[in-house]
């Protein structure tokens, strides 16, 4: 049934599938599961490797799992960290899974009117959040799950008169060893990545996943379907192409991530015709910003009353990703751009140390030199504080590079992309307000010294790229309709972070996954219209049905009239 040769177009041999899914992160995995479970032939092309749990290494050596599965693309004014493997961002993420606050869906951003589709608000997305929560699953963490770093953050927030919450997470607490190697992939299957739910369920229903297949562009076939052109990437040196090919599909789901989806679509323009204006525009870095606090251990003991035996804190290396978030500034009464989450975070050395700053010998802040080295001596007393604020969707992609979404520099991980991001006054105001809030909390009574990471080296940085091919009601500022179909290109749907309209003020994985779940009834209906024998209505990947039942009344409105 699947992938038999076809010589119908362009004179080249192409394989054939019903639905071709580009990317295997949240947007791709959820689509692959529902379509395969519904009876469609599904092929998933993933540019990165397929890494098994026992291949996830605790190792900083170049070429170990963290460089294989991660991408760090430096742009002009913005660098993007993202997944590069089967499972996409879910394999490298910290699994913090809060829902976006209600006000986010009412944001106006830089277009002066509501930027989300009128059909979506928090209430109407909640049933789709519930489906994802059941599928992964997501747990409500409590104080016994909170690491020392989360605890010291919470205590500092309380000391400043603020609240702090253990954050919901897609983590199996019984399996977690608090090793803090989450960014290298979870060796212990404690992190509920897509490798443990949607993807194996999709495969069980017959979906094919091809790793190291990097889609370059799409063309249109005479039958109204699409031909998807890919390169096969060397498993060790991602700069090397070892093959190429094409697959014909009746429907295409693009979910290559917000740093790649618009690049693939723009590269397809010569074959497909013009893309909507918003493809490759309105990119958001989720308003992200990082500060490093270096605690005075004695003050942690005397001011916060914390003690863990051998030290008061000194536990930077211990734990997992963000455990505690402060949501005091998620106040709908505050003006847009002044609302943000502060979250305790851990980045391993390298990612987490290079951009940290310190006052230099001449009083100017610096990221290198003797004073920085001295700061590293206190690394176990570091706490990284993560801001997710409201940016202005300033990012614009330049002309696509020859292949992929970046010109690769290193064998793995490091590349140079074409994203340009010049933060607006609004965005910078939000960052300044969050920097001031972090300083106020952490430096109170001499608890810590705080400085933001420098933006001078690689620009601003985001681990949550969004909105570069977004949904909306207005064709001039959105690339997709509210059912995630690419305007002017029927049969192409986008379900990844690029579809999210803008910054969410919280970790976005849960929201983009909920949007992907919400898009499925419409995509299944479109596939049926295009001749694919498929039905909608699969239970959760593990077979649970309660969230499906709850979402069922919403399905009819999501299917094209």
């Amino acid at each position: 049934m699947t992938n038999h040769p076809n010589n119908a177009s362009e004179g080249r041999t192409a394989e054939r599938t019903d639905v071709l899914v580009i990317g295997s992160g949240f947007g791709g995995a959820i689509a692959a599961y529902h379509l395969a479970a519904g009876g469609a032939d599904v092929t998933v092309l993933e540019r990165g490797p397929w890494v098994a749990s026992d291949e996830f290494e605790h190792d900083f050596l170049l070429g170990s799992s963290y460089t294989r599965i991660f991408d760090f693309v430096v742009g002009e004014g913005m660098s993007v960290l993202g997944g590069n493997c089967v499972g996409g961002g879910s394999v490298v993420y910290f699994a913090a899974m809060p829902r976006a606050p209600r006000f986010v869906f009412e944001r106006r951003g830089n277009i002066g009117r509501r930027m989300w589709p009128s059909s979506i608000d928090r209430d109407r997305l909640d049933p789709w959040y519930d489906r994802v929560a059941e599928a992964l699953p997501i747990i409500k963490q409590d104080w016994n799950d909170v690491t020392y770093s989360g605890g010291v953050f919470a205590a500092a927030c309380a000391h400043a008169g603020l609240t702090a919450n253990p954050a919901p997470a897609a983590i199996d607490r019984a399996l977690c060893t608090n090793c803090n190697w989450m960014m290298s992939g979870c060796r212990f299957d404690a992190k509920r990545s897509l490798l443990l739910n949607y993807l194996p369920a999709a495969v069980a229903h017959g979906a094919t996943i091809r790793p190291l297949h990097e889609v370059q562009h799409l063309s249109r076939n005479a039958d109204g379907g699409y031909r998807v052109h890919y390169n096969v990437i060397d498993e060790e040196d991602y700069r090397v192409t070892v093959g190429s090919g094409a697959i014909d599909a009746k429907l295409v789901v693009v979910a290559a991530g917000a740093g790649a989806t618009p690049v693939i679509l723009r590269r397809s323009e010569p074959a497909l015709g013009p893309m909507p204006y918003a493809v490759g525009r309105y990119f958001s870095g989720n308003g992200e910003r990082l500060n490093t606090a270096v605690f005075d251990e004695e003050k942690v003991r005397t001011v916060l009353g914390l003690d863990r035996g051998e030290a008061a804190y000194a536990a930077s290396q211990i734990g997992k990703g963000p455990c505690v978030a402060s949501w005091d500034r998620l106040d709908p009464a505050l003006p847009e751009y002044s609302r943000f989450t502060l979250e305790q975070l851990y980045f391993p050395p390298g990612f987490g140390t290079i951009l940290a700053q310190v006052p230099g010998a001449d009083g100017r802040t610096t990221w290198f030199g003797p004073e920085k080295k001295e700061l590293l001596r206190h690394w176990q007393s570091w706490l990284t504080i993560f801001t997710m604020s409201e940016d202005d969707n300033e990012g614009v992609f330049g002309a696509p590079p020859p292949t992929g979404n970046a010109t690769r520099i290193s064998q793995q991980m490091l590349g140079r992309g074409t994203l340009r991001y010049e933060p607006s006054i609004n965005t910078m105001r939000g960052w300044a307000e969050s920097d001031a809030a972090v300083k106020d909390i952490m430096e109170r009574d001499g608890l810590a010294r705080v400085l933001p990471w420098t933006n001078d080296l690689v620009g601003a940085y985001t681990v949550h790229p969004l909105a570069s091919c977004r949904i909306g009601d207005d064709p001039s500022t959105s690339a997709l309709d509210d059912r995630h179909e690419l305007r002017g290109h029927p049969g192409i749907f986008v379900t990844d972070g690029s579809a999210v309209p803008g910054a969410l003020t919280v970790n976005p994985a849960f929201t983009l996954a909920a949007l992907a779940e919400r898009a499925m009834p419409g995509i299944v209906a479109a596939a049926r219209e295009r001749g694919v024998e498929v039905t909608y209505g699969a239970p959760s990947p593990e077979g649970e049905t309660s969230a499906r039942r709850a979402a069922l009344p919403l399905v009819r409105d999501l299917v094209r009239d």
Partner: protein
Amino acid sequence: METADPGGRSRRTMTLEAFADTIVPGEKRFPGDRTVAGAAPGPGAVEAGALELLETPATGVTDGLDGYCEALDEHATAYAEQHGLKPDDSVPPFVALDFEDRTAIVRWLTSPGHPEKDLWVLLALFCNMAFDTGAHLHTTEAIAAGHPGLATMGFSSPDDDGLWRFPDFSYRRELAPRHPNTTSTGSPA
């Protein structure tokens, strides 16, 4: 090409060592060490393996190292002329500079707006990684060998199977009031 370096290092090695030592400085390794300026106590990026990492082809910078050295020679020569510094032909021009002058050049090259910024940031990143992560080594082996960067940071050792586990990870008590607008599933309302 060889100079009178007591360590017998090539000009390329000396120049790259001086650059790496500017990023994460260390103490001099031997009397007359010219490349390591001795600007900070303890081993720095050079002893942590910066050259080994830069010479690892997977970085993507190895083929460009000669070009980096030539460019650094030129920038250092111009800087010395501008500042009226006395030439010292016994070592490469960047190595001839004292630590403060090397720092000034690196700061200038990595500043926003410098046309070569991306290249120098890239080189600096790998020098940093050599110290902060020992990315040219398996981390278990780096720790066993007393890798100076990981030791400076107090990076703890793994279990016997080479994996890290921290069974003692939490204060295990409520440390802040919960936000009043939290939903039953633990999310912001």
